């Protein structure tokens, strides 16, 4: 195989956000100035929706991490007049009311750091989609509720068919994640390989658990999730690699996560074969950026640290290799 190394393309950087004690001031402008502190770190991943170009794939979320669900807008009318003064009661002071700010989604001190993206930020096509009653919307909720009519934006599906995309949800512990798998088995006792009475050595007894794991293609390692970021999308997701058994499965999941609401129908396999405008890359153990799909799946699993869906055009170094690739025919 032929390993490709690509340098990471620099993201648009977000404005510096300093965190200090004295920062809460309703009168400040919105660009995140505040009072600079003594060398605190920058904060890259807070959103300011207005500054990024929202492509159709943006999801209405707050965090740069996992979730695809949207945070509902607190309507201005509900919090008008609710002004919260937060002083920083460090050292047991209790809240000194130093300044006031309005805790709404519109503007003001609270939102130096993060602005709740509202329906207004999005092209109307997306909004009207939410208002439709059809089940083809991105909502995956029980049949007797429709996804329309409220000012809350709808949620995305949590569970694509081939594995959960939200880590640790729903919160069932390991002991209770298996029942549905187990009920598929008819007679587990048939599958015991060795009888302990016969075998006094320390050979591992193949038991029910191994059978289940093997049957379901799950590696014996624990649940393993890696972050996935896509260029142009501020919100990353997480995907459980152990719930997938092949590149195709993974591409399918990623397609559902990132491209489902896109007007342009990107077929899942195109993420892998390099013919779409996006290319799937990963960061390996050494920190290098590699193209997904070159190495056997198991090897990939053992070295992948995070995934990135990169815009084809962004990576100049990729282009020449890209053409080689198209000619080369990937297996």
């Amino acid at each position, binding site marked *: 195989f032929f390993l490709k190394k690509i340098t990471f393309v620099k993201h648009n950087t977000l404005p510096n956000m300093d965190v200090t004690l004295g920062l809460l001031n309703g009168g400040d402008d919105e660009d995140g100035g505040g009072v600079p502190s003594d060398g605190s770190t920058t904060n890259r*991943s*807070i959103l300011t929706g207005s500054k990024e170009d929202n492509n159709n794939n943006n999801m209405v979320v707050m965090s740069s991490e996992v979730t695809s669900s949207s945070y509902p807008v607190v309507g201005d009318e509900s919090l008008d007049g609710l002004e*919260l003064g937060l002083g920083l009661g460090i050292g047991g002071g209790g809240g000194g009311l130093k300044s006031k700010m309005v*805790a709404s989604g519109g503007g003001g001190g609270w939102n130096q750091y993060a602005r709740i993206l509202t329906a207004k930020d999005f092209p109307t096509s997306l909004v009207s989609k939410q208002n439709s009653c059809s089940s083809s919307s991105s909502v995956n909720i029980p049949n007797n509720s429709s996804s329309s009519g409220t000012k809350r934006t709808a949620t995305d599906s*949590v569970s694509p068919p081939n594995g959960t995309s939200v880590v640790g949800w729903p919160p069932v512990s*390991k002991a209770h994640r298996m029942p*549905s798998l187990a009920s598929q088995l008819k007679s587990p006792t048939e599958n015991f390989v060795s009888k302990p*009475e016969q075998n006094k050595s320390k050979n591992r007894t*193949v038991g*029910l658990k191994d059978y289940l794991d093997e049957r379901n293609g799950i590696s014996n390692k624990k649940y393993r999730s890696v972050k996935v970021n896509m260029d142009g999308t501020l919100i990353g997701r997480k995907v459980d690699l152990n719930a997938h058994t092949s590149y195709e499965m993974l591409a399918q999941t990623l397609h559902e996560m990132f491209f489902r609401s896109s007007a342009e129908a990107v077929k899942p396999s195109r993420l892998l074969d390099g013919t779409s405008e996006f290319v799937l890359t990963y960061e390996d153990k050494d920190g290098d950026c590699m193209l997904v799909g070159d190495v056997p799946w198991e090897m990939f699993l053992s070295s992948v640290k995070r995934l990135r869906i990169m815009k084809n055009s962004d990576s100049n170094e990729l282009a020449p290799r890209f053409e080689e690739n198209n000619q080369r025919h990937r297996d």
Partner: protein
Amino acid sequence: MFPEEVLEHVFSFLTSHTDRNSVSLVCKTWYEMERWCRKRVFIGNCYAVNPKVIIKRFPEVKGVELKGKPHFADFNLVPEGWGGFVWPWVVEFAKGYPWLEEIRLKRMVVSDECLEIVAKSFSKFRVLVLESCDGFSTDGLASIASHCRNLRVLDLRECEVEELSGHWLSHFPDSFTSLEVLNIACLGSEVSFSALERLVARSPKLKTLRLNRTVPLEKLSTLLQRAPQLIDFGTGSYSAEIRSDVYSSLKDAFSSCKNLKSLSGFWDVTPAYLPVVHSVCSQLTSLNLSYASTQSPELTKIRLVVLDCIEDTGLNTVSMTCKDLRELVVFPSEPFVGDAEVQLTEQGLVSVSQGCSKLQSVLYFCRQMSNSALISISKNRPNLTCFRLCIIEPTVPDYLTLEPLDVGFGSIVENCKQLTRLSMSGLLTDRVFEYIGTHAKNLDMLSIAFAGDSDLGLHHVLSGCDSLRKLEIRDCPFGDKALLANASKLEKMRSLWMSSCLVSFGACKLLGQKMPGLNVEVIDERENLNSLPEYAPVE
């Protein structure tokens, strides 16, 4: 002033850790008195204190209980290798507590070497309870079996054990007869059945026996016949060909267990075999059918754990027949599937709340909920102390009105004044936190996911919940402000977990600097970006 002997005698009646902690704060004399006679020590967060400090302060301890990883570790939110290693504790205990009798660990990493040290260092060792622990193998268990001559309790609750051999059980010597509790339900591989049978046969004090799934149904009666004194029994796999001899011997075996109060296990149920337990049902206080995808029970019990296959109709039956029910747990049979085929809705819970007047604790997984249902539940059952509701899909609104579930949960905290534990789900705005901050004055533990709009939400909770000690938050738009503004509150809590929120690294550093009493930990794969969880335990 009472003489010391009197004080010591009075203190001996205090068993609760909080009481003992309070007592030790009264004055120096009491502190001294108390520390010399404390027999059991509870450390809710293994990183809150150094083991040497504990040993120095409490020299006469006989039993230790430790907790390690945060609760969200159960749901894979804590990375591997995070910590919670019991090794440093065990090493110190071996030196400082040679007469140690009991070790109880929860969510800790226990190695075989640890188990070997435990087995060899404490001649009076009696109780080993490992809950949600991992890091050890059957070799470690073999050490315990070989060396702990006076062991009474070996309780492995939902541990992950590397199973090298089923023979570790044979390491209990023939002279070993003191076993009272044996729980191996979490083991996936076969254990030597003959060793198990002999062990059960020579343990006249055995009260709890929870088998693992590999013990076949056909062999159950053999074991039960050897232990008719059992109080708590967990079956293995409950599935077999239907044979009348097996059926009748099982039935007889169960009937002879006059003291049976709790049943669990029931993996892979063959429904035809369920009636054999009917003879004991009336005396059961606890029935755990969470691995049995059937709909059966018309059974009286105090604690019922089932899968959602029980459906609303089953729960309706429960509400009519289980008048002493105190705790209801309903797990999802298909947690990762969006549409459910089981007919389990909010109605099931509402009917149980109506019919079961003693209901105090609920853990309920379902796919839809409404504010009106929550309000009904709160009015039916103001005596609830623990209410954990998980609507499978995050941020789902009231399915009838499409409103957030703020009002519903608000009603819960307002009416259930003794509520100490709450987990919420569904669509929730800052308003629900306002309700919680205003009303939930006895709340000890709160779990939040995918909820709220802004820091205001977190601020309500931190400033309003006077009794709050454990707070776990994931995927909420809470950032630095509320955290920093309520930093002094954090010192009164045991732990705070925030993951996938908006807390910046800078705020964490600030907290760490300004609040030296807090341990602030940041876990993030990136170097210096937005932090993920912040774990702030308190001592």
